[in-house]
């Protein structure tokens, strides 16, 4: 009997929405309760309706040929030739003949094997218990690693807000990951750069003699821009950020007016 609680877990498991530790416990249950595994399969099929409701999108050009080129480089493991099947009956007949010859010997061994089988069965039960326990431990570890990675990523992300002395409405924010040496700049309400000019982002690194260029950018009609950037050279520590207005294509070091800074 599958109660409501198990049905809830089955639905969540089918959508991969159980946390790892709960999923490991539930997976063990599905091995013991076939009806539960069947229910999960039905929920999975139901969930996939959502995928089918997504409108198809024509893939990028060339993807088909890239896939075919990729598989051509990796020949599929094909089925064994059918000729092998012809020999199967002969093989069975030979095995039966051998088996008949060995019958007497096997009878002698049968009792010993029964005893061994009982031992193996008990050992198997123990292994199942140990395996379930290891599943739980592994799931716990995966959870802890994921949590640590999440904390680590957050700890490494430095967030800065840039304002302007030219116009208080200009605004920008930066998320900078020093270990990855990359960041995201979001700009709001910044007017388009005048003809022949570009906005240029700079990273101030105390260990660098001059500000490090992180590239030029333009804003959209509404004054916004979202740019993923990586500085031109390695930054040991980003203590500040600035945006200046430079000649088109950018400058080697800031020469134009500072538009945004923190």
């Amino acid at each position, binding site marked *: 009997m599958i109660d409501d609680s198990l049905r809830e877990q089955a*639905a*969540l498991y089918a959508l991969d929405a159980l946390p790892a530790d709960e999923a490991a416990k539930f997976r063990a249950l599905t091995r013991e309760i076939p009806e539960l595994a069947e229910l999960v399969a*039905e929920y999975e099929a139901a969930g996939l309706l959502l995928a089918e409701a*997504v409108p198809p999108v024509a*893939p990028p050009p060339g993807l*088909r040929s890239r896939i075919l080129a990729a598989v051509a480089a990796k020949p599929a*493991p094909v089925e064994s030739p059918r000729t092998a099947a012809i020999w199967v009956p002969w093989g069975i007949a030979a095995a039966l003949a051998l088996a008949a010859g060995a019958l007497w010997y096997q009878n002698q061994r049968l009792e010993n094997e029964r005893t061994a089988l009982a031992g193996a069965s008990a050992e198997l039960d123990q292994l199942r218990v140990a395996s379930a326990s290891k599943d739980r431990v592994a799931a716990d570890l995966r959870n802890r690693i994921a949590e640590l990675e999440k904390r680590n990523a957050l700890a490494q992300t430095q967030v800065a807000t840039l304002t302007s002395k030219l116009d208080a409405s200009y605004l920008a924010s930066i998320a900078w990951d020093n270990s990855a040496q990359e960041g995201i700049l979001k700009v709001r309400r910044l007017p388009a750069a005048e003809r022949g000019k570009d906005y240029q982002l700079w990273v101030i690194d105390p260990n660098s003699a001059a500000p490090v260029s992180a590239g030029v950018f333009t804003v959209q009609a509404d004054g916004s821009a979202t740019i993923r950037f990586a500085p031109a050279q390695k930054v040991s520590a980003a203590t500040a950020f600035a945006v200046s207005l430079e000649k088109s294509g950018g400058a080697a070091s800031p020469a134009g007016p500072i538009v945004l800074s923190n």
Partner: protein
Amino acid sequence: MSPDECMRRIANGNEDALGALYDQFGGLLFGLARRITGNEREAEEIVQDVFVTVWRNARTFDGTRSSPATWLTALARNKSIDRLRTSRRRLPAPPPDPESVPEMRDPLPDPSQAALAGDRAARIAACLGELPPNQRQAVELAFFDGLTHPEIATRLNETIGTVKSRIRLGLDRLRQKVKGGLE
């Protein structure tokens, strides 16, 4: 060539059959991967990964347990969610480049296939439309955003019990629809 026939031929190393399978499902899988990851480049890699997986594992495919469409969709969804969760543990996904110009696209498969798919899609859309909005929202956050039930509860500011119940009720309705042939 039917999807089942494609699978049989792929199992025997027929590359043309893989191309035929791509023609039938490439658009669906690319749309799904793009919907989940929000990133065309990643979606492209996922679709390639799916078809290479199909190529390598076609022999193990059991047509009595699921259809090729179900297998392909599940592969694409699982690979997309894996990528989504991995990137969520790092930085936010790269934003779309505002200056990027959409590429020219491969054409979608032939119109008769599209019409058949369109009929089924319409029935599926009708089924999803019958779900109460809060059940559909909870199911979609799990399916497309790869959120676990505690994460969904936080996102929706609801109790875990409420979220569990909504997902179960939503999936139960869809399950009944599948059993009834989507009628």
